[in-house]
Structure formats: C-alpha cells, structure tokens
C-alpha cells in the first residue's frame, strides 16, 4: 500500500505524517523549499481580524477584534474556502476550535521530538512584534517566536546586534512604542540593549540564517551566553531577531534564560529574517524521517493515470530522462506560485501536472487567463490571482472540468487548493496543516478501499 506525496512544505508533510501514522508506506517528493520555509514562526489557523464595519484599515487595533475561532467560522462560510469542506455545513465556533486544536495538537506531537513546540489557542489572540516593531495578531506560534509573544513582562529590551543585516533595534523599538501610544495603551517600560558578537560569529552585513547556524554550535552558544548574561534583569523580556539556532532553538533559549536570568524570545521576521521558517522546514523533515517516510529530492513532471486512476508520477531525471514511481494514492501539495504548484505558461495560468481547472474565491474559472487580468488594483484587497487554485470535493479530491473528482485516488492539500488568498486571509499555514492532515486521512481511506478491491 504505497502513497506518494508531492511537495514537502507543511501541507505535504502533514499529509505524509498522517498516512504514516495510520500505517501506510509513504514516499514524499520535494523539489526545493517552498513557502513554508519562508514563514516567520507564527502559524495562523485564522489570524485575528478587526470586526467588520467602519474600522479604518490602517488603524485596526483601536477596534474590537474577532477571535481566531470566530474568524475561522466566517472563512468557512465563504463559498470556496477550504475550511468550508472540513467543517460541518453550519460551522460553529466550537467546531472550528476543535478543528484547530486537534490539528495543532497533532503538529505539536510531530514536532516536539524535533525540539519545536506549537503554542497558542484558537480562543485567544497572540500579539507578536516583528523585526520592524510592527504588531501582528495571530493564534499560534512556534518555539522561539512564541517566547517573544508580548504579555505583561515588566520591561522589554530590544537587543541591538551590530552587523546583522536588516536588523535595527532602535527604530523597531521606537515604532513599537509609538504604536502603543497611538493605541492608548499604557506606556511600556522598554529599552535598547547592545549585544556585540565577535566577527567570527557575525561579520558586518552577516545573514540571519548563517548566524543562527553558528549560534547553536557549542562554541557559538557559549559566546552568546556570555555576551547576553549582563543584559538580563529581573522581570525583563529580551527580544532578539530570529537567530537563535536552527534545530536547537529550545536548547539555545534554555541556556540563554539561565545565563541572563530572565525571559528571552524572538521577534517574528519576514524574509530575509525567515529563520523560523527554515527551522519549521527542518523540523518537518526530521519528523518525516522519524515516522519512516521516505523523502526524496525530485521534480515531478506529471501524474500518470491509467484506467481512470492515478497510478504514479513521472520524475524529471538527468539529461531529459524520465523515471516513473508507482503509487496507489497520490497527494498533491505543490503550493502556489512560490513552489510552482501553479504557473503562468504561455501567458496563461495553469496547474502544470494535470492541467486541473483553477478557480478564484468566487468560483470563477481562471485557468487559461493571463495573470494580469486577475489582479485588483487595491493592494490590500483579496486578489483573484492569489485566490486561484484547484477546487476539491469534501474528500479533498481536486475536481476536473466536469465538476467531479478528477481521479478517485488523487488528493490535494495546502496552497494548491484555491478559494482563499493566504496573505489577505492570514490562514496560509493553518490551511496547509488542516487540509494536509485531512488529505492524508482521505488518501489512507483510498488505499484501504483499493486494498479491499484487490
């Protein structure tokens, strides 16, 4: 009973882990790191949003906020949002909460042995500052970023690290303070402290990822421990950019807490500060290996079908050769444009493996359309171009042109499923996680069915 998962981001990994847990033989193919590796340590199932009606877009924090679970319900009520296929037809907050808790609980179970924990809740909002000092409202975060979540620490200390590319503690701290003032929140005691690292660890203009790798070596960690020790103080939360190790972030944090004598956490960081994304990517690879999933670096060129079923995939081999891998069920978790799950080919949008029909959030067919016709001029609006993806049935099987499942044993997960603009809806990793698990479960069912048939 062999299943193939195409794509190694959070969606593909969740599908493969779900299959493996149920006892299937799973092989996962990935071409390169995708959008998951660019994420920043938060994991929004349904990032909090201001309540509808009247809030100035630029000033969301002054108004009432919708809790993530309530927002997930709203998303699920949209005609094409993937949550709509995973929640009951009349979605409730308790159903959304259960779905989010179950999914993040499973992820936590997979990642914990790799040293990464998932923290948060769909019933409350997690406030996290990013490397520019801007506030982000989310529901879940991973080790490192989660420790940087803002609560009632007596004093925030922004750690300046001279030389680190793209990180300036003073403006970030100032922006953050001004933001609190704008919100009429009580001024927070905060300061900027300076952490000097030797050039062997951090050369001028040094990249965050390289520093992270150096800081988790025993020597690197020792230097950091000593340098950070004098910056600690009772009741203080030391905020660093995301550089505290790749695989060993929990260990690094524990060592720093001990030496500084106070709390230490990381800010959320978009690329080029997406070290937290790399961390998640690595931890998923570790979890897959621990579950016995065979991982292989390969570029899939086509899904092979025979007698109305998927029977495997074709890989791009060396020098134009092709190789075929067989499978009894296939999960596509190929992402959108970043990962190449969707492409613009000859001036038209297409799904490159099976030419699956693509739809935007309103259900409009958009494959065959030039990308430039699918944009709305307002940057902040949900963009049909970035809502584009396949549609699935309730078993997450992508639909063909006739509106029925394209192949009975082919499933889709993550960004490839359309109907939501991940950046606009702030539910990208959440969709990847819940659809990945669900697609894995459905693929397992399909394996069982074909086993019974044989």
């Amino acid at each position, binding site marked *: 009973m062999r299943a193939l998962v195409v794509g190694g981001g959070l969606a593909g990994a969740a599908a493969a882990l779900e299959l493996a847990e149920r006892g299937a033989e799973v092989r996962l193919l990935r071409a390169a790191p995708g*959008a998951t590796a660019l994420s920043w340590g938060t994991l929004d199932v349904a*990032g909090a*949003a*201001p*309540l*509808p*009606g009247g809030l100035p*877009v*630029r*000033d*969301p*924090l002054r108004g009432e906020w*919708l809790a993530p679970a309530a*927002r997930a319900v709203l998303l699920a009520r*949209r005609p094409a949002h993937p949550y709509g296929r995973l929640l009951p037809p009349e979605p409730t907050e308790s159903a959304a909460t259960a779905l989010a808790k179950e999914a993040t609980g499973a992820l936590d179970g997979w990642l914990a042995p790799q040293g990464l924990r998932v923290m948060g809740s769909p019933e409350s909002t997690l406030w996290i500052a990013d*490397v*520019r*000092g*801007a*506030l*982000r409202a989310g529901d879940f975060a991973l080790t490192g970023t989660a420790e940087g979540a803002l609560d009632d620490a007596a004093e925030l200390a922004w750690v300046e690290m*001279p030389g680190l*590319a*793209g990180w*300036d503690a*003073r*403006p970030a701290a*100032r*922006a*953050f303070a*001004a*933001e609190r*003032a704008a919100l009429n929140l009580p001024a927070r005691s905060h300061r900027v402290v300076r952490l000097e690292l030797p050039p062997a660890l951090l050369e*001028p*203009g040094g990249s965050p990822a390289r520093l992270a790798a150096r800081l988790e070596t025993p020597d690197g960690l020792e230097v950091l421990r000593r340098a950070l020790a004098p910056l600690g103080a009772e009741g203080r939360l030391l905020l660093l950019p995301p550089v505290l190790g790749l695989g060993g972030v929990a260990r690094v944090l524990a060592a720093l807490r001990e030496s500084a004598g106070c709390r230490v956490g990381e800010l959320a960081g*978009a*690329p080029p500060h997406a070290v937290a994304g790399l961390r998640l990517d690595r931890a998923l690879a570790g979890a897959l290996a621990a579950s016995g999933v065979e991982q292989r670096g390969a570029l899939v060129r086509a899904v092979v079908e025979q007698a109305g079923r998927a029977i495997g995939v074709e890989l791009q081999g060396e020098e134009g050769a092709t190789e075929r891998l067989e499978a009894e069920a296939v999960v596509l978790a190929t992402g*959108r*444009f*970043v990962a190449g799950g969707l492409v*613009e080919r000859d001036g038209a949008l297409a799904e490159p493996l099976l030419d699956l029909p693509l739809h935007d*959030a309103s259900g409009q067919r958009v494959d065959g359309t*030039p*990308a*430039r*016709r699918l*944009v709305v*001029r*307002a*940057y*902040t*609006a*949900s*963009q049909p171009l*970035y809502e584009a993806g396949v549609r699935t049935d309730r078993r997450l099987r992508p639909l063909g042109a006739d509106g029925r499942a394209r192949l009975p044993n082919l499933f889709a997960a993550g960004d490839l499923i359309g109907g939501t*603009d*991940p*950046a*606009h*809806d702030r539910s990208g990793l959440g969709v990847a996680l819940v659809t990945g698990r669900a697609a894995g479960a459905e693929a397992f069912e399909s394996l069982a069915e074909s086993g019974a048939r044989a």
Partner: protein
Amino acid sequence: MSGTLSVQVLVVGGGINGTGIARDLALRGVRTALVEKREFGSGTTWASSGMIHGGLRYLQKDPEVTLHSCVDSGHIQRIASHLVFRIPFLMPVFPEDPIGPELLEIGLEMYDRYQPLKNGRPHTRLTREQALRVEPALSPRLECAFTLDEWGVDAARLCAVNALDAAERGAIVRTHHEVVELLREGGSGRVRGARVRDRITGETQRIEAELTMNAAGPWVPELARMADVEVRLRPAKGIHLVFERRVTDVAVYARGVDGRDMFTFPHEQNSMAGTTDDDYYGDLDRIDTTEDEVVYVLEAMERSVPGIRRHRIVHTIQGVRPTLWGFGRNEDELSRDYAVIDHGERDGVPGLFTIAGGKLAAYRLMSEDATDRLCAVLGVREPCRTATTPLPGAEAPLDVEAVSRRFRVPVPAVVRLAFRHGERTRRVLAPFDPQPGAGAGPAPRVVCACEPVLDAELLHAAREEGVRTLEDCALRVRLGVGGCQGAACAGAAAAILGEVLGWSGERTACEVTDFAAERWRLLAPALAGPQLAAMEVHRAVHLGARGFAAAEGDA
C-alpha cells in the same frame, strides 16, 4: 502655520523644466522659490526613456528639434558627467521592413553630421553575423543592422540634482507642496505668486513673487486656469516596461504593429522597453498602465528580441507628455518643439509665464530660453552659466577604489554611488568615515540588495536632500526597483528615514503601506511569469502587519 515668503520668481513644477529653470535663475542670482507637488521628476520626467539623444525620429519633420537636442546633449554630458551613460543602439533590418538598408543609411548619414555635437560616434553597418555576435538576443531573422550612438541619464535624479543645486545657491525648494491659488492683484489681474499647501502637514503659505513660471508639465492647463488663461496641450500618454535585469546589452530598435519606432535599452541595472504615444484625457494624478499598452510593447519588441517575454517585468512607468496642441494624423506626428508663453503679452495677465512641450535632451537650452525671458522682465543682466557650470557631483572625478577602502564599502556599491552622486559620494559616506582614534563605527550597510542601496544613501537623502516620504526614495535613491519591489527593504528603509525625520510608529507603518501599494499599482497590469512568486512573498510580508490588517468582509 501660515507665513509669507517673498521672492523674485516662483517656479511651479519640479520636473526637468522647473528644476532646470530654478537652477538657471539661482545661478544668475535671482531670488527663486520652486514648488513641486510630489517628488522631483515624479510626473512626466520620470516616465521618459531617460535619453539625452538627438531624436533620429524628428530629423525628417523637425530638424530644429534634432539640432537643439544634439547641441544641448553635449552640454549636459559636461555638466552632469557622472549621471550620463553611453547607450549604443542596434537597428536591425528585417526582410519585411518597408524601408530597406540603403534608404535607412541615407538617414543615418544625415544623423552622423549631428553626432559630433553630442560626442556620438558615426553609424556603422553590421552584417547579420556581426550583429548577432554583438547582441545574441537579436532575432536571427535579421538581414543586417546599423549601429548608432546615444546617451542615457537617470532623469529623475537629474531633476533632483538641478533642484539641489538651486537650493545650494539660495533658492527655496519645496517638495510635496501644491498651489492652491494664484495670488492676483485687484484691477490689473497681475499674478503675484501663489498660496501653496504642504500636502503632508496641510500647512499653507503665501509665496509672493514678481513673476510666476508655470512649469507644471501636463498640469500646465490646470494651473493656467487658476489665472483664467488657457494653455492648450495635446496630452500624450507614454508607458515603459521595466525588467528586473538587462534584456539586451545594447539598445535595440523595434517596430510596433502600427509602424511606430520603439526600443528596449539597458538602464542602470534594469532594461526598459517602450514607449507608447496616445492621447490622454484621464486623471493626471493617477495614470495607470493598461493591458493593451503592455501587450502592444511586448509584441513590438518580440520581433527584434524574440525572448523578451521570458524576462521578468518588475514594474511599469507611465506619464503624460505636455505636447503642444496641434492637429496631426496621429500622436507621433506632433512636434516635440516647446513654447515659452508670456501671459502678459498674450492674454493681458502680467506676471505669469508658461513653459510647455519640449524634450528632455534639450532641457537646459529650454530652461535658458525661459530664464532669459524672465530675466528680461526683471531687468537682470547676468548671463546664463548652466552650459558650463557643473551640477553637484560633476565637479571632479571620484577615485572609486580609494573611497571603497576608506569607507569599507564594496567597489560595486561605490560605483553605483559614483554614478548617482559623482564626487559627492564622499559626502554621502562621510558619517561612516572611521575616525582615527575614535575606533571604527559600523560600516555602511546594504538596505536593498536588488541594486545595492546603502543606509548611507538613505540617510543622506533624508538629512541633506530633503526627502520627505518613503515613496520619494523610489525615485531619489532607486529603493525597491528590482525583483523584491520593497518586500525585503521597505520596512528597514522606513525605519531609517523615520529615525531622521521623526516619524511616529503610525506614520512609519503608513509609509511602508503606501510604498508597497504603489509598487503593486505600477506592476499589476504587467504582472506575469516568475514575478508572480515574488509578489506572493511581497504580499505575505506586508499584509497582516499593523497598517495592513483588512477587516473581515472587505474581500
């Protein structure tokens, strides 16, 4: 706060005409104020192809325009030596072309006579094989090709440098200031300056002036109407596509489906392709590129450079030429000549002048003419010195390697600074000069890696050049002009500017929001291919941070 300023001349419009005139006036010792409603060069000048050329195209119908452009191009090369770069052109000839190589060569021989005026080399004729060796991206269908020689410039920077020089010589220079009304004298109707409003702070101010020069480009008629006079233009929209990297090593001519000449050319780290020329009667404050224009340009270019669609378009630029009004079978046939109007003479409204029309390549000459007219009224006898006085930065060459060593900046980043700031690169880097004994402070850092934009240049722009918004930096320092379109640099750059300019967190967030949204607006009509993934990251970076959180239901 409303105060009153008093000057001899108020120049309205910070494009190439306005800044050129303000500098000329300042050089002649005339007390001058210059107001620009956005950023220097952000209207028509920015949207030009940035060519200091003679205009082979105008040779047949407007030889005067060609002559003036060539003579002035020579001057501009001397006064802005650091800002100009040679652009070799290839003109491929295809079997189906209506004009064969022999006839073309006659035209080029005529143009050769103008080349020495602008330090250009005479044309050469290349065989098919030679042409393909020079530019492998050319279509192999060509029969033969001709070379000719032109010059390019960062046109927005040229405006800024003229304005900065005017300011250094005593002119009052304001960006983001718009005219809300012209001050009129009761009875005579004489124009006595203007009331201007700061579009960022909302403050207004009276600027009293003996003479007011309307150099508002396509907005010329709008400003003239404030004095109840009419200036007729035939506004013509033009767009360019901007590619992430160089599509070709040299500029290449192409012909549109309607027979119009277009070209693609290397411009700083990018390549550009264009342009179009269409009557425009829409909103001048919000000009959008359309899908038609994008396809029209790509189809034309494809015949000469078949692989052009594989290159990544990172944004479009668009503007409206303030072409003088006239009938023509099509927009291309209209004259590129210019006019200086004395409204006292023409309309009985003394105190107001207008300049309209013209070409970037002859901006200095047009400014000289306009300034002569103003000075005649003012009774100023000082001669024009703009043809010989170097613009800031062009005073002396820069020793790139010495600067690189001293300020710890890699050579490519210094070369880039030298191109933009010339000899004044040393001033840009001065705050980072390691002082003996004081220990080396931090070296300048790269804020935008697309084209190495240093924090030093941003700081200089904010402290010394009067930059007021993050969006200003797109033109002033070329921030976010590459593949990232601000995804990687907008936040960091806003933090640096905000520190100098005292922005609140709120303001900083808004600046980033506006910058990201403007990049999207400029790219959206041409969004395609690999740039789809880049913008997916762009949106993930920007949306969801404070300032962008969208309310549920606004989808």
